């Protein structure tokens, strides 16, 4: 904390906890906000909104705004978890081959290109249809759609609102993992806290193998956000919207700019779902090749797919009355309680599974949504560990050889595209995910269900 304080007070410094808190306060002053601007336990500063921040705006209030900063540049960045019927002892002997197989199938890194052939028309369709496109083309299973937020498709997506530049950037990148904190991991069930909820997710015992994919909308989403920011600045001037921070560029929800952004953001969200679906397909292929059985026989079902950078229209009870809200979740995961109509039928009794990706080499968690979270945080919880050191500081303080050696010591196979990123994403650069998850559990905004530990990591 002292280190944080020192960092925050130094002139010209950005990032960290305290600037994050300041950003939460700035968001609380935005027009049309309902309830509180919520900071989740993994909060750290980001562009405009803090990462680990959620804020809801009343759609019926003409003053209410939508802000690209409240969604983030990696639109619909999210986590998907696949289960298998394999156990640790089945995988350990072939761990290296499996990691290599995944690495060969899923292109990684900044400039990576996908191996699923796509042309401009396919992209247009994918942007509009989301996971329905993947389904139509046969890349995924019908059950995958069922176990995905929004059923893998934002219906208000409009590809015509997306710039040519974004489409050009996005086209070759579909089906790639990307860089930064994105990864694909082979994980082992390390602990089961809620036996029944885990059972509903198809997790029966400790030692079961899962695959976690953490990725987003790649350069496509980034370009959509960048384009929108330019438009928003114009709209702010026109409509005289004042904010405490220039980074909080926004537009009224009902203004043309606001609507255009929501439509293009939905297209980017669909892009991310197709992206994760393509990687699901490739992971299933890699596993099937290694074990010489079909993915069906390996029971490689999607447990769930969460989005932690998105703005969605949801109905919440505010002061005892149902209200339509535009909920911005940036670095925050939706966590709906049991019996909520928007969660899949299989999780009606347990609450929505919430996937919390840890950092490279640390554990990940599956939580479930609670009624308390619905009341306190509009059904939102944390999204991951949350950065503790800035990227530059990680590079200065850590050596990539040390980081890799440590992972080796822990028995984790790793395939990475760039050593520079290994330091940035080292567990030391992040907060302890267990502390973050325990805080959410103690606050009652989500409930611990499963703990997962990685045995192989693929990274950009």
């Amino acid at each position, binding site marked *: 904390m002292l280190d944080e304080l020192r960092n925050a007070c130094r002139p010209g410094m950005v990032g960290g906890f305290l600037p994050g808190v300041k950003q939460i306060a700035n968001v609380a002053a935005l027009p049309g906000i309902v309830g509180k601007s919520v900071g989740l336990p993994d909060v750290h500063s980001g562009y405009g909104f803090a990462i680990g921040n959620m804020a809801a705006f009343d759609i019926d209030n003409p003053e209410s705004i939508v802000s690209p900063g409240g969604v983030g540049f990696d639109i619909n960045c999210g986590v998907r978890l696949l289960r298998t019927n394999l156990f640790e002892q089945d995988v350990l002997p072939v761990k*290296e081959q499996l*990691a*290599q197989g995944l*690495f060969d199938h899923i*292109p*990684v*890194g*900044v*400039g*990576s*290109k*996908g*191996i*699923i*052939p796509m042309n401009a028309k396919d992209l247009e369709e994918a942007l509009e249809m989301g996971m329905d496109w993947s*389904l*139509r*083309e*046969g*890349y995924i299973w*019908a*059950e995958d*759609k*069922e176990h995905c937020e929004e059923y893998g498709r934002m219906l208000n997506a409009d590809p015509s609102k997306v710039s040519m530049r974004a489409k050009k950037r996005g086209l*070759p990148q579909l089906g790639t993992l990307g*860089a930064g904190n994105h990864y694909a991991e082979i994980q082992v069930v390390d602990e089961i806290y809620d036996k*029944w909820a885990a*059972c*509903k997710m198809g997790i029966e015992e400790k030692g079961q193998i899962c695959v976690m994919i953490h990725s987003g909308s790649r350069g496509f989403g980034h370009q959509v956000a960048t384009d929108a920011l330019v438009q928003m600045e114009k709209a702010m001037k026109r409509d005289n919207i004042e904010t405490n921070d220039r980074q909080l560029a926004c537009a009224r929800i009902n203004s043309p700019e606001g609507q255009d952004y929501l439509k293009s953001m939905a297209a980017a969200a669909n892009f991310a779902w197709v992206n994760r679906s393509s990687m699901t*397909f*490739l992971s299933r*292929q890699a596993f099937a090749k290694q074990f010489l059985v079909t993915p069906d026989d390996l029971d490689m079902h999607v447990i769930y797919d969460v989005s932690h950078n998105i703005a969605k229209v949801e109905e919440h009870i505010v002061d005892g009355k149902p209200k339509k809200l535009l909920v911005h979740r940036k670095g925050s995961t939706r966590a709906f*309680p*049991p*019996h909520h109509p928007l969660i*899949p*039928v*299989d999780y*009606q*009794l347990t609450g929505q599974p919430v996937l919390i990706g840890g950092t490279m080499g640390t554990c990940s968690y599956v939580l479930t949504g609670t*009624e308390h979270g619905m009341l306190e945080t509009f059904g939102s919880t944390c999204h991951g560990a949350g950065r503790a050191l800035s990227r530059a500081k990680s590079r200065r303080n850590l050596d990539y050889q040390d980081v*890799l050696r440590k992972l*080796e010591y822990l*028995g984790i*196979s*790793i*395939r*990475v*595209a*760039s*050593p520079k990123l290994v330091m940035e994403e080292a567990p030391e650069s992040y907060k302890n995910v267990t502390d973050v998850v325990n805080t959410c559990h103690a606050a009652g905004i989500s409930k611990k269900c499963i703990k997962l530990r990685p045995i192989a990591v693929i990274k*950009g």
Partner: protein
Amino acid sequence: MCLFYGFVNNICSVVSVNRDNPVSGGINLFLKKKYQLIFKRNMAKRLLNALGYPQADSLNLNDEVTFKKIIVWLEINRVRSAPPNVLNTLKNFSARDWDNTYIRYKDGLGCPVLGTKLEELQWILGYAVQIETAANRNVYLKYAVENIQTSNVPSVVAENPLDKLDFRSKEFAEGIKELAKVLNIVPHSDPLVTLKAVRKVVTKRMAPDCVENPQKYILTGTPFPFQDADLGFDLNDSVLNQAAKILRMLYIHDLRELQTKANELIVAVQGITAYPKTDTKLGKSWILIRYARSD
């Protein structure tokens, strides 16, 4: 006649679909209107033909006298609802208040406000067809689709022995109770409700495929302790809460069945559309530095 009317209605729906298509441009709009008009004229002539109006095909429906003649003919021969004084005025084509009388007449029939006289004529023709069909219902029913189908099939007199049962007799109630006992069903106080449950079990579990492959039908899995599950609300009454929980479970069960059907439908469509392909030549990862455990 009935068949013919159905056919006309079909054309109607086809045309109305086309009519709803957004057509842009003045020429298209003009053509659209023209075709609508031609269609309406043809339609009116067909209806007149069906009603037995002499030489309906060669009529000029734009001619005022022809229009008046048709109205009078329809009233005398088919509609038969106007009071004598109205009919007399309508018969006198040169009467000064013919138009007013006609308006009163058509309003009396319940004709809605329409744009042109042709449309009004068409409505009155439809009305006449309805009267005609209703009067000769038995004749036309012979040609109804259901009856045509059954007439081709050798007729079997359906006799349901259950119809003769006395559902309220003691014997029946006891028999059902016995049957429920055999099938392991808890009997309801109303034997008919128990019978419904018996029917469900028999159709689901006693089907030939189910008897041969019981594993396919018997649900396996770990039972969920729904008693401990959060109901989401409290009715301040443990019995009511219990009932609400059971309702929840039934609802979830229905929802699951619906979702499974939706999934099956998607899979069926995938059978036609799916063609997943990959091309590793397209793949490109950034600088590859592979770091693996050496063991």
